Structures are given as C-alpha cells and as structure tokens.
C-alpha cells in the first residue's frame, strides 16, 4: 500500500493535502498569529463567498482580458520578428544588439516609464504584458528558424517554393516546437507581469484585489485572491499543454523515431 503510493503520482497530492492540514492546525493552535494567518477552511469559505457574489470572477475577468490581449500581441510580434531575424541576416544584425539590451531589464523596472507615457489604464498593463511576453517567444522562434533542416528548405525549393511561402509552409511549422516552448514561458511571464502591473496601478483586477485586501486588513480575502491565482496559473498551464500536445502531435512521434 505505502510502496504503491511512493511510486504513484498521488504522493504529490498527498503532500499538498498534508501542508494544508498543517496550515489549518498551525492557525487553530495559534502557532502563528491568527490575524495574518487565517485557517485554510476559513479562507476557503471566504473564497467561495467571493466567487458566489461574483466579485472574484469580475476581478479575474478584467485581469485575464488584459493578460490575453497583451500575451497575444507579444506572441504575435515575437513570432514575426523571430522569423524575420532567423531568415534575414541583416535584420538579425540590426535587431540583435537591441534585444540583448532590452531583454535583461526586469519587467517591473519599466512600469514607471510605461505609466509616464500610457497612464495607469489598460493600455499600460497591456503594453507591459506584451513587452514581457515578446522576448521568450522571439528568442525561441529565432533559434527554431536557425535549426530548420536545410534538406527541408531544399525540398521546398525543388517544388518551386520560395520567399514568403517557404517561411509559411516550411520554416514556421518546422519551428513550431520551439515557438511553443517560448509561448509557454511567456504565459507564465504574462501572469506575473499582469499581477505586478495591477498592484502598481489599477482600480480592478486580481492583483489590485489582493493588494487592496491586504491594505484593508481583509486577510482572508487576500489569501482567497492568492488561491485564485494558483488555480488560474495551474489551469492555464494544463490547457496550454493539452493544446500543445494536439498541435505538435507529429513532433512527439517524430523525435521518438529519431532517437530510436
């Protein structure tokens, strides 16, 4: 029984349940000051009330809307610029130094600049999210394009395919595994930047909600917000992986065959 548990994936779930139990206990026994450490059960009740009243879903909806708009702008531009940089040496030489300077700047550092130019509304947050999502996709797309098998390019050429068609029909699908890797990193980044930008300047959204709850000493609400983010982050990743497995079905089998 115990041996079976040790070898199954269930053991991870058991750990989470154990930690939540410990949390409950530590709060009930007063090991940690209860004011900033409410019981898990109490947080869950509050969370459920906030969901039922529609408050959390509303905040989440405005957050997710901003996140996805920014994310898809960033991904779109990242793929486009990555393809161009990979395909044309001149564009690479032109843009590579600039991306290497901009990329290492941690996203929160340019929030003040973004506020100066775009204010504190959605534009600023969408810009921030797009900007941060852009780089992982750009870099991965670029390396994908660089590693396209020359035989595939030559094959397309013998069928009279060149230029934009070649990019679309061969380079893009061949780079798609790398592009998906970049997109998955960017998704996590987008979630982070969404919360940060909402904590800095916003009047709604889940980041704002968490910070406002903390400032108003509504500690259970604060934790409920954090729980929500955990659920959202986890779900987004699962959805992404399912989508990836579908789109890249060929790639999985192909790489397995190459290895054997």
């Amino acid at each position, binding site marked *: 029984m115990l041996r079976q548990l040790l070898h199954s994936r269930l053991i991870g779930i058991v750990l989470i349940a154990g930690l939540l139990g410990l949390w409950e206990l530590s709060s009930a026994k007063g090991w940690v000051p209860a004011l900033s450490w409410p019981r898990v059960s109490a947080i869950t009740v509050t969370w459920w009330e906030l969901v039922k009243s529609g408050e959390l879903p509303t905040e989440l909806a405005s957050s997710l809307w901003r996140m996805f708009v920014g994310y898809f702008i960033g991904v779109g531009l990242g793929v486009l610029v990555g393809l161009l940089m990979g395909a044309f040496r001149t564009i690479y030489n032109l843009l590579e130094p600039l991306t290497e300077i901009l990329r290492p700047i941690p996203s929160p550092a340019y929030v003040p600049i973004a506020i100066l130019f775009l204010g504190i509304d959605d534009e600023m947050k969408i810009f921030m999210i797009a900007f941060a999502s852009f780089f992982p996709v750009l870099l991965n797309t670029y390396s994908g394009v660089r590693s396209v098998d020359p035989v595939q390019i030559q094959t397309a050429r013998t069928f009279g395919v060149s230029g934009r068609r070649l990019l679309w029909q061969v380079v893009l699908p061949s780079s798609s595994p790398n592009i998906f890797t970049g997109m998955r990193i960017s998704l996590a980044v987008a979630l982070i930047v969404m919360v940060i930008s909402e904590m800095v300047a916003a009047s709604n959204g889940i980041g704002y909600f968490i910070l406002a709850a903390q400032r108003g000493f509504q500690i259970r609400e604060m934790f409920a917000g954090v729980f929500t983010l955990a659920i959202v982050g986890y779900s987004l990743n699962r959805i992404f992986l399912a989508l990836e497995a579908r789109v890249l079905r*060929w790639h999985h089998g192909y790489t397995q065959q190459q290895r054997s």
Partner: protein
Amino acid sequence: MATPFLEVVNLRKEYVGPEGRTVALGGINFEVERGSFVSIVGPSGCGKSTLLQIIAGLVPSTSGEVLLQGHPVREPPLSMIYVFQQYTRSLFPWRTVEGNIAYGLQNRESLSGSEVASRTNEFISLVRLDGFERHFPWQLSGGMQQRVAIARALACRPDVLLMDEPFSAVDALTRVGLQELVLRLWREFKLTIVFVTHDTDEAIYLSTRVVALSIAPSTVAIDLAIDLPHPRDQISTRELPRYLEYRHRLLAQLFKDEKLDSAQNSLPIQ
C-alpha cells in the same frame, strides 16, 4: 543539329575553405536525351551529389552551365524535381503521407482543391500506399518513406526526375523493389531520369547510359551507353555477358581512382 534535351556544359564547382580553394568539379560535359535513364557513378567525394544539385538549380556552379531544352537553369525549374537521399529529412514530418504527396500540387496555381485531392489519391495508389494516407512519414518503414517521396515528386508530373542515391539507406530486398518501381514509373510516365549512385551494378541495371566521374577535380571518365534489352530482369539481365562487360569497364575505372592500397581495402564499392 537539334538542341539536346538536357545538357551539362563545362561545369565547374570550386569551394573556398580555410585550407584554400578546392576544385570539386573540374569541367563536366555530357548530354541527356529525352526519355533516357542516365546514372552518374564515381568514387566517394567526387562531387556526384553536388553535380546533381547544380543540375537541379539548387546550388550555383562556379562556371559553366546547365541547359534544359536550351534554357540555362538558374532556379529549380518546375519540370524538374529532385528526390533526396535523406528521405527521413526530406519528407515533412508535420504532414501526413497524403499531405506530403499533395505538397507540390498545392503549390501549382493551376490546380483546384479537388484536382489536388484526386491526383494525390492517384499517386498514393501508384506507389501502393493505399490505407496509409493518414499516417505520418515517421510511422512508416524506410522503403515506404522513399515511395512517399517518389510519389510526391511524380505527382507534379515533371519531365525530369533527379535522384540522389535514393536507395542507399534501405535493405537489399527493399532496394530491389524500389528499383523495379522506378523502372516501371520511368516507362509509364516517359520520364527522363538522372540517377546518382555509388553502386555500379545498380547503375548498369537501371540505365540506358552510365556516366562515370573521376576523383576530384572530377571530369567525365567514361560515358557508356548501356545496350541491354528492356524490360530488365533482376536475375537474367545481370547474367548477360554484355552486362558483365559493362561492369568490368566501370569497376576498373573506379578501382583505379580509389587507389587500393591493401587487400583489406579491396571493397571500395559498398
């Protein structure tokens, strides 16, 4: 005199590397008649594949030219399709068998979607891959994959098929099957085939002419018309005195170039 169908004129290819300039092709001349099956053989490293890629318009030559019906080839012409040695890399792994065979057709503006579909099916049957339409190439055996590549090339109805050691990576029996397939398709579609191989027996068996290259900087060492009856037979053709005579001449040329230096090294032709 009439213009030759396909003509290779004074073709030279030089590479500039860290060790200076190397001449791969040192002035190649030969002609290919319409409807003929010409094999190019030569010692390894003599630039056979490079020559074929230049003929295809995939690689530029240093000097000299390739003329297809009198017109210089600079970009890959639509009437000429190149079949790659590395079929596992040449087939698009994200496309199914069907999708791969349709690839060339989808890039011909003159064809509608339903024409593409029906011609794709026709060529799937032609190479006997019915039932595998929805498989991905990597789910198939090597011989089947090469049949997909051949069908993909033929579906475009080219006049010329350029084949670069297409059977070098499959086992002997599969190879015989593919040789028969190519001979059948050559007759059926009245193709002109230029076929690169390192196997002189394969070259003689398949061809109407064999061109043997010397070591680099290579030139044409032997240009041999193969006068053997059609249809050919895997067993009896290979036993004809004339077949053995051709074999003798070609092997003597190749062995001379390989500079055999010991008894252990007596099998330069794999």
